[in-house]
């Protein structure tokens, strides 16, 4: 088999319990975002746009929908002869069924998979971050530094830094220390959970880690510190641009609202770095005579007959005449009935909001969720 430069492995096993009912039936990376996308479209489109051919997706919890979604590798053009998106749930072994016990363990359990492509480097990604990034540029950085490991970092404020894994670096951005959520951060370079490893080294490190009883088998907690201790060459790759972790209802709402901002940093309109997603049957959006649509981000298939201000409407949403939607995120196939009034609410997919379910959330209160529909295949 021809040598692939870099195999990407996406950790997509998060339960996302803080996303409440939105993830009752689906895994977090499959959550809808931005009018037409799912979160995992971002790392997958980044891979496609960066020229990566092989992507493994490590899934875990209740993931039929996620598994079958990412298996449609043609969405990201990853269905060529020698490319593919491979779904890798935990496997039945001769000693029974395993679960992934940590981010590193998920890779360890798939060493055979990675080996079969004989890659020089492996790219580790997370399935639930929203950002656009050229992994090929990071790969060139990795090669130019003759690095063993490169870790993408984001410059955060020192205040925020205590929420992240922080890289302390020398003047060449070589990493000298890693601190997980430090109380007194010495640097503002936060790990984005995006790593390039030389595969031979990672493979050995993972197998060593497997034997350590006290290890939590986690990249941040175990693997990275071990490699720093071993004197390996780890470099921080500074990422500039929009990056968002959408772990809560509030941050999911915020990330959607960011698209309405005049300084929309994510810029999904750039034709040279498109984000690809499933092509759902939908007619063009229809804005009726009675509609009032302002400061909104609206996807195809929507029928808007009511008022929509400062909101994001996903595929095939219906806003009936007389409905009022303000500061809301309305997910696919939802129907807002005539007379319903919503403010600062996320409406889940396939939900129906009658006037009785109207909900107006005050500016200083947490965003609320209405979810009375289900998720569907296809």
């Amino acid at each position, binding site marked *: 088999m021809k040598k692939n430069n870099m195999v990407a492995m996406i950790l997509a096993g998060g339960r996302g319990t803080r996303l409440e009912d939105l993830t009752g039936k689906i895994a977090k990376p499959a959550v809808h975002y931005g009018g037409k996308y799912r979160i995992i479209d971002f790392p997958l489109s980044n891979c496609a746009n960066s020229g990566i051919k092989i992507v493994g997706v490590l899934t875990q919890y209740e993931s039929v929908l996620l598994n079958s979604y990412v298996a449609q590798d043609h969405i990201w053009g990853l269905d060529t002869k020698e490319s593919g998106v491979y779904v890798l749930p935990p496997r039945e072994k001769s000693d029974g069924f395993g679960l992934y016990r940590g981010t590193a363990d998920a890779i360890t359990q798939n060493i055979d998979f990675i080996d079969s492509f004989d890659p020089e480097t492996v790219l580790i990604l997370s399935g639930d971050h929203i950002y656009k990034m050229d992994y090929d540029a990071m790969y060139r950085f990795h090669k130019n530094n003759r690095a063993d490991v490169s870790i993408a970092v984001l410059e955060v404020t020192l205040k925020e830094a205590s929420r992240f894994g922080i890289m302390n670096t020398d003047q060449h951005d070589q990493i000298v220390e890693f601190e997980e959520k430090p109380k007194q951060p010495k640097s503002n370079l936060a790990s984005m959970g995006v790593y390039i490893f030389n595969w031979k080294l990672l493979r050995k490190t993972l197998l060593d880690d497997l034997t350590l009883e006290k290890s939590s088998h986690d990249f941040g907690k175990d693997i990275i510190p071990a490699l720093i201790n071993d004197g390996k060459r780890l470099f921080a790759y500074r990422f500039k641009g929009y990056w968002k972790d959408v772990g809560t209802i509030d941050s999911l709402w915020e990330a959607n609202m960011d698209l309405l901002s005049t300084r929309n940093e994510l810029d*999904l309109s750039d034709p040279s770095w498109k984000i690809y997603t499933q092509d759902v049957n939908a007619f*063009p*959006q229809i804005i009726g005579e009675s509609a009032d649509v302002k*400061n909104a981000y609206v996807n195809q298939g929507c029928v808007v007959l009511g008022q929509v201000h400062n909101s994001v409407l996903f595929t095939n949403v219906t806003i009936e005449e007389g409905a009022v939607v303000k500061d809301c995120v309305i997910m696919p196939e939802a129907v807002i009935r005539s007379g319903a009034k919503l403010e600062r609410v996320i409406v889940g997919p396939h939900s129906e909001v009658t006037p009785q379910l109207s909900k107006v959330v005050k500016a200083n209160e947490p965003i609320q969720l209405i979810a009375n529909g289900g998720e569907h295949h296809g």
Partner: protein
Amino acid sequence: MANALGIILFENPSVDVAGLTAHRPMPALSFLGRYRLVDFMISNFSNSGINHIHVHVKEKPRPVYEHLGTGRHYNINSKKGKIRVLYGEVETLNKVYNTDIFSMMSNISFLEEDKNEYVIVSSSYMVYTANFEDLLHTHIGSGADISIISHSTDQAKDKFLHCDTLTLDKDKRVTGLGLNLGKVKTRTISLDTYILKKSLLLKLIKKGYQTSSLYWFNNVIRDELDHLNIRVIPHRGHVFAINSLQAYHQAHMEFLNPVLLRDLFNSNWPILTRTNDSEPTTYCDKAIVSNSIIANGCKISGTVINSVLGRGVVVEEGAVVVNSILLHQTTIGPGIHVEHVVLDKYSSIQHVKELKGSKVNPLYVTKRDSI
């Protein structure tokens, strides 16, 4: 699965949508913001379980090839089925000889090799939805040699101009084939769609080709009215014949009727098309949009009324767009007013302050034009 091959012929020379069809063949013509004309007939075929389709192209085949691709987006299994674009196997000495009969004749081996017993011969400029599995059953049950799908209208003075008209006897047998010159209100219009056995089609093509090298398929049909049992199957529902710029504009304006839209965009009968991976459309703070159909990727800061916008259209602040069709990637600059206008792809209005056509004579702005 229907046991039929679907054929989409190219339109005869009376069909001319001004500059729009100078830049691309009819099947690739933009329609309703996100579709191309051919999507409607191919969706009809695919939804009816027909997965072998021939699309004949008169000239400039590239956009048709690129749009149809493998047929994946039309639910055509590329291993078992095939959309074949047929173009220019044999060159004509003069364009006038490039008739639909000639095109079928020069690609006759693809027709002969097809395994289906029946064919449905259609055209891409006739826009309607129909279940051809049902129509095929009706055809077989009727005992006719050929069935022509027909549409009765009492607006023949304004619509379906230059379309073929049918004269019927009491038994719905076709006795005459004429042309709608807009003089009579009530007409039975031919939808240029024929159901027949493949073996009969092969005979008719060869016969027509021998009769005259200027013959079109409807000429052949007319010659056979006395010899074959040719009947109509009336079509229920909306039909649009996109055979002129006025008809193109008029069809778009009619689509702005929500009832009609609901009829046509029925979730059990999807109109399938190729995706472009455009982002959703952005409505800015000052946008005023009413009674319009909008594709993805637009940025609207101005006013849009009774209009259809293709992908990636930009309407800047203070601009006013009324009763117009803006094809994809067009831009209306700040403060500019356009009305009854058809803007071809990539064109941009930045300098003239006002641009107005009329319902009968919509104004066409050519591809990549900047005015």
